[in-house]
């Protein structure tokens, strides 16, 4: 469909402003000098044009409300509608981030309650809610780790161990904070190679980054031993909370020996991710790391909650204001809706759904690891007939109304399809999905072109990604 710019007709307008009785100010010479030359190339449209344009765009997009979205590692669960309404309460929506604290006691209370809830869920002692996304939380954590070692006179600790199965953000965050990421291999069971890990531990190691369950959906059962060895070596244990949805009410990072962690509000706590964001990546730490949290932190006095800026060891601010408040608010509403037993059931159902899918698929597809999975699992689309690849299966799934699973991640499994059903799907949905995947296997045998030419019912057919990158056209 046409770009909005192509729909422009000079003279149309969708904008109104009250007529003003404020006198027009003569432009200052400074402004005169900087005055924009020419009119910016923006569309001129009436309100109906804009409404139809975006309505049509929306109909060319798939969300959780449109159907099953088992995108592994992204935890595409249902986004409760009440949370959207709560975030639109004017008292929240129009609170200014620079208002004096006494004006914002409601917003501060939301943040305070959320910190408490996150501590309870994770076993951490303190949280900062500033980081705007998961990767941002990782980066914040890396800054904290750096500050911690510096304060101990351990500034030479510049190595961060990262399993090869880790999300790409882990090594990237470590590097961005000035660390050297060191890969740790996985063993045949899909878990961290303990021996290699131990062999890498020395007094240059700042931390180990780990997600547990890992990106294969497998629980790192040696976690206590790992934690001990890392701590003995003077390193810190960092928990990538991307997979927190698997463990609420079951185990806590704080109890597994992790020193700090981030979590993803938009994954585990059901806040909409809106086509790529916003998210929120709060960082939790144990007591001894609390001095390094970004300033300000929330304090409580007789006069109420306040921002405490007197934080000499803080790593500094990581965002302009207080983090993605609107996202955090929804996370708190979600937690309150479920309560403790509800969150535990969330994780249990996520695990049950994943194991059910895994059990039903393992007769048809190759499941590389034999143990029960947690909230997600990986199948490997190798040795399929007619050179069918994971991507073909993914694209063919689209024809049946599904968003495909994550493909080609984690990198350690060939032709990986990473499936995370989440707890917000029921058995009937999973059964239909299994049936579809089985049918696709038959098609792969009998009508492979159905797969290689898929998808068939989408507004566009398979797009040429190479062409896009070869001669980038990035704007109208």
């Amino acid at each position, binding site marked *: 469909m046409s770009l909005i710019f192509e729909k422009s007709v000079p003279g149309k307008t969708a904008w109104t402003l009250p007529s003003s009785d404020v006198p027009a100010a003569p432009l200052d010479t400074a402004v005169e000098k900087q005055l924009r030359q020419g009119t910016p190339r923006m569309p001129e449209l009436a309100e109906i044009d804009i409404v139809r344009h975006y309505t049509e765009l929306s109909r060319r997009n798939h969300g959780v409300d449109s159907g099953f979205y088992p995108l592994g590692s992204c935890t595409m669960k249902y986004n409760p509608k009440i949370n959207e309404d709560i975030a639109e309460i004017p008292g929240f929506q129009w609170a200014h981030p620079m208002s004096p604290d006494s004006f914002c006691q409601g917003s501060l209370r939301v943040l305070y309650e959320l910190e408490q809830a996150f501590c309870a869920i994770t076993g951490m002692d303190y949280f900062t809610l500033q980081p705007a996304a998961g990767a941002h939380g990782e980066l914040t954590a890396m800054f904290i780790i750096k500050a911690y070692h510096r304060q101990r006179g351990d500034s030479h600790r510049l190595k961060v161990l990262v399993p090869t199965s880790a999300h790409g953000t882990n090594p990237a965050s470590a590097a961005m904070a000035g660390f050297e990421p060191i890969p740790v291999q996985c063993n045949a069971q899909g878990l961290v190679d303990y021996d290699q890990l131990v062999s890498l531990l020395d007094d240059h190691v700042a931390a180990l980054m780990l997600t547990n369950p890992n990106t294969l959906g497998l629980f790192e059962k040696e976690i206590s031993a790992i934690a001990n060895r890392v701590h003995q070596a003077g390193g810190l244990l960092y928990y990538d909370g991307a997979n927190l949805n698997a463990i609420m009410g079951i185990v806590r990072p704080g109890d597994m020996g992790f020193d700090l962690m981030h979590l993803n509000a938009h994954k585990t706590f059901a806040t909409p991710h809106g*086509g790529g964001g916003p998210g929120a990546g709060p960082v939790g730490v144990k007591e001894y790391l609390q001095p390094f949290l970004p300033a300000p932190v929330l304090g409580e006095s007789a006069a109420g909650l306040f921002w405490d800026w007197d934080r000499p060891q803080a790593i500094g601010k990581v965002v302009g204001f207080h983090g993605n408040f609107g996202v955090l608010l929804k996370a708190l509403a979600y937690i309150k809706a479920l309560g403790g037993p*509800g969150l535990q059931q969330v994780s249990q159902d996520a695990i049950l759904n994943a194991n059910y899918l895994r059990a039903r698929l393992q007769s048809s597809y190759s499941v590389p690891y034999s143990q029960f999975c947690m909230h997600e699992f990986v199948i490997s689309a190798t040795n399929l007939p007619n050179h069918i690849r994971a991507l073909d299966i993914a694209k063919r799934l689209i024809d049946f109304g599904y968003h495909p699973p994550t493909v080609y991640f984690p990198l350690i499994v060939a032709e990986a399809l990473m499936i995370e059903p989440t707890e917000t799907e029921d058995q009937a949905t999973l059964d239909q999905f299994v049936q579809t995947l089985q049918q696709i296997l038959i098609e792969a045998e009998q009508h492979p072109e159905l797969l290689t030419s898929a998808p068939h019912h989408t507004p566009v057919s398979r797009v*040429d990604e190479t062409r896009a990158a070869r001669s980038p056209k990035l704007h109208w």
Partner: protein
Amino acid sequence: MNHPYLPLTDGQRRAMLDTIGVSDFAELLAEVPEELRLKKPLDLPASQSELELSTGFHQLAEMNVLPELSFLGAGAYQHYIPAVVNHLAKRSEFYTAYTPYQPELSQGMLQAIFEFQSYISELFGLPVANASLYDGPTALAEAVLMALKETRRNQVLLPETLHPSLIEVVRTYLRDSGVEIIILPCPAGVQEIEHLAKSLSEECAAVVIQNPNRYGILEDLSRLIELTRQAGAVPISYVQPLTLGLLEAPGRLGAEIVVGEGQPLGLPLSYGGPYLGLMAVSERFMRRIPGRLVGETLDRDGRISYVLTLQAREQHIRREKATSNICSNQALCALRAAIYLGVLGPKGLHQVAQRCYDNAHYLAAELNKAGFPLRFEQPFFMEFAIHTSRPAADLIHSLAARGIMPGLDLGRFDPALDHSLLVCATEIFSKTQLDRFCTEMRDLG
């Protein structure tokens, strides 16, 4: 357990365990060491019904004091948001989607972001805009990192006229990196040309100019950029995007990286987030720019389509060699900004900027008559600092009791300015409202 968010029934759970071949759920946790398992329930309040949630959060919201009139800006601005922005951005196909990894199923969001990039590219005057970053300050930090890598120099010059949180976030990102951050003092409220000239050297990787600056004042942007370029450093411009309805695109004045806070483009204040980090860069930074990029391409049938592109920069491909660790961005906020800019159109954008300018200048003149002179005698845009005879903090509390938030106490950033108030007037105010503010200030000031 039955809950509206949990569609599995106990019957289904039972049947599924049977299919898996275990007798109870605990068997699925075989790999989770017993001693690690939580022995008691999570220490959280009981589950609340939707009615309780709604009531409870309304009560919390009422604990916030919302003034009738607020002249507080300082990095977050109350502009009018047309109704269509929310109606359209709230289409669930948009807000319940993830990053558009599967382009065939995501053409809606991909095209919307491509259009967003087009707007930002046009407004900023640079060829490559990304799909958004977290917020303005983090966008600036990423910009500085890019400039450091590109120039392989090791020093950054930051005028004191940058908003404090810009300086703070850049400091956080560069701490321990070995990069030297030099803060340029600006006692007159602007970055003086001569002083920048003296401070520039061959070590400088970037100079950041916020325009209008932390005091709402217009910097001499062209000359500052020119000086920076002459020194081989990267000129980075930081903008409030709505001012670009009147002001020239910084890219056309020579800035090589333009960043800014996109909140004014149709986002509510929401106590500071989610906001919208804007970034556009010149060609030479195209493969260094952090964040997602949407590019145009063709599908197998030759139809124009859109796709995430140049992903080789990104963490999920390049891991530790990525240009940035960024993964999530603020796509939904970018969508809102695109809708907002579509509503404005070129004339609306100009009108909003002009009205902000007019309102601010009328208000400054009236406040001056009421006994509150400008703190800096400099040209400003829509924000300005005034001198108050009482401490600004006191004044704020007095006016708040009358339903007015008069602005920001500049003493919060600089104790020397504790008798200064930063006042912002956007397009939302009528003359009557501005006059009421002046009257109340005269009464109480």
